[in-house]
């Protein structure tokens, strides 16, 4: 798409139609010419916020703001003054917000501007464990149930409207509510089934790794695909037979029969929303997945150590972490989070990444059971981290774009990347340097039993993989602050600082 005149190829490109009064506005998400957002550090529109004409999110000095359009004024005022809005915030189901000066608005169509509470780290549904996606789904249903009691409804049921704050799911889209009347169909029913029910069912009934479908289907897993992939036995479950299989058939059947939206919503037969919601809740609550049988579920890193070595490693990690600055720690290859807990106990806010959905799920369950708010487990293949996705490649940010860690923890990880995935040590060091400025890292030499296991099934082509090679490779980006051998092993723990930090 180009707006340049056809007659004069040398003509300077015209700007894409900018809204009136926006000449001083920085590059917004609307430009087609420059998919890499040129962001005014002071103020820019969130590239993920373009779908809903009722409003959008913009950032100003690192703070999120939400602009409410005039067309949504009646619904917003009704919601804002309703007890529903207060109850949702009191229960911690919806992010809190405060009024902001409407002068901050971009363009001329603003009704209000609000400043919602900022969520530190945005995670995406394709990074969540089964239990996290399930809790997010149940929260969405809880919110819809409460909304209906107050004469409101959720206009959307996107999984991207849920974030994890202090370890718990919370709804972040304050503009999702509008007044409704009893018996009206739920506009977001399809979206709920595609964002939550379909992936959860596939994970529980077919294979937990099918969560990966969410990464490719940002609008949710198509129901016809879910219906095809599910085992036949899923048709015996009333909830799945209706919300997935029958629903998918109906979508196919009516796909080419457009009905004007307002009309079809109003003329449809009254829908028993209480029964529908109850059925969705029971169906999702009935989905179970036990974290076992995948890569590391029964693997505990400590089993490769003696008790003595474990105690020494714990003490060293605690000491090195205590010496780092800042609160935000990313535990890379966290497994079931033994060392994430040590970092959290030292007052750090930890995001615990692991490639294995079972290990991350186990950590999520224990974190929830213990009522911890300082550890967020996420599923992540560090050799293939979340890319930038969606419209203009800017809607869902890559892991590196979201990197804000003060410190990284990489324990019993480097041999998996270097030997298991053939990543050269220098590459690992450079990539870690993009994620954080301090690094507590364990070097596992080839002679180590766990490294030997990796080498047992492949040719040893890793000539540079040695402690000397590690020092040289990581020395490009990092300086050594401290180091100590782990007693009873040949492993060494390093505390590093990025050269420019």
């Amino acid at each position, binding site marked *: 798409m180009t707006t340049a005149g056809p007659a004069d190829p040398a003509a300077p490109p015209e700007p894409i139609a900018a809204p009136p009064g926006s000449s001083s506005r920085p590059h917004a998400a609307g430009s087609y010419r420059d998919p890499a957002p040129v962001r005014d550090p002071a103020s820019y529109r969130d590239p993920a916020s373009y*779908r*809903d*004409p*009722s409003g959008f999110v913009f950032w100003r000095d690192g703070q999120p703001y939400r602009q409410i359009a005039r*067309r*949504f004024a*009646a*619904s917003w005022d009704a919601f804002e003054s309703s007890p529903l809005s207060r109850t949702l915030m009191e229960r*911690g189901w919806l992010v809190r917000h405060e009024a902001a000066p409407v002068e901050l608005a971009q363009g001329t169509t603003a009704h209000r501007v609000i400043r919602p509470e900022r969520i530190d780290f945005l995670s995406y549904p394709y990074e969540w464990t089964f239990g996290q996606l399930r809790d997010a789904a*149940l929260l969405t249903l*809880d919110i819809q*149930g409460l909304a209906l009691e107050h004469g409101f409804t959720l*206009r*959307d049921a996107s999984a991207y409207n849920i974030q994890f704050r202090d370890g*718990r799911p919370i709804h972040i889209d304050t503009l999702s509510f*509008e*007044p*409704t*009347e009893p018996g009206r*169909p*739920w*506009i*977001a*029913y*399809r*979206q709920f*089934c595609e964002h939550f029910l379909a992936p959860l069912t596939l994970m529980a009934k077919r294979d937990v790794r099918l969560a990966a479908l969410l990464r490719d289907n940002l609008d949710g897993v198509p129901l016809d695909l879910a219906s095809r992939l599910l085992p036949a036995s899923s048709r015996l479950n*009333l*909830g799945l037979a*209706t*919300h997935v299989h*029958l*629903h998918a058939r*109906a*979508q*196919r*059947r*009516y*796909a080419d*029969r*457009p*009905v004007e*939206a*307002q009309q*079809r*919503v*109003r003329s*449809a*037969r*009254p*829908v*028993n*929303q*209480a*029964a*529908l919601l*109850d*059925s969705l*809740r029971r169906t999702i609550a009935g989905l179970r997945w036990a974290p076992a049988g995948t890569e590391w579920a029964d693997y505990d890193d400590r089993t490769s150590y003696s008790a003595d070595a474990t105690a020494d490693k714990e003490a060293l990690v605690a000491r090195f972490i205590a010496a780092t600055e800042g609160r935000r720690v990313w535990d890379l290859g966290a497994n079931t989070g033994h060392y994430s807990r040590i970092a959290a106990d030292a007052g750090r806010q930890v995001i615990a990444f692991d490639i294995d959905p079972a290990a991350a799920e186990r950590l999520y369950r224990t974190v*929830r059971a213990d009522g911890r708010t300082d550890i967020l487990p996420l599923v992540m293949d560090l050799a293939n981290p979340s890319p930038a996705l969606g419209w203009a490649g800017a809607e869902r940010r890559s892991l590196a774009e979201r990197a804000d860690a003060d410190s990284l923890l990489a324990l019993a990880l480097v041999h998996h990347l270097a030997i298991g995935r053939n990543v050269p040590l220098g590459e690992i060091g450079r990539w870690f340097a993009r994620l954080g400025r301090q690094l507590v890292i364990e070097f596992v030499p080839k002679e180590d039993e766990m490294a030997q296991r990796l080498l047992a099934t492949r040719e040893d082509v890793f000539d540079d993989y040695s402690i000397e090679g590690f020092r040289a490779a990581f020395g490009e980006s990092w300086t050594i602050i401290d180091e100590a051998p782990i007693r009873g092993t040949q492993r060494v723990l390093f505390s590093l600082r990025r050269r420019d930090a």
Partner: protein
Amino acid sequence: MHPVLAYIDAGSGSLIIQAVIATIVAIPFFFRSQIGRAVRFVRGRSAGESSTSTADDNSRAS
């Protein structure tokens, strides 16, 4: 009558089948709520005034 500000595609099939599905699942929903009422009624009579309203089954640990 409130306007519907739908910006997502609700899907023709999803809207049409929603009413049908809600009707189907309303049958067990109705019986469960009747059983629940009966149980509460019986319990209420046997427990006297000691039992107050029990938490609804929506309460999740959170």
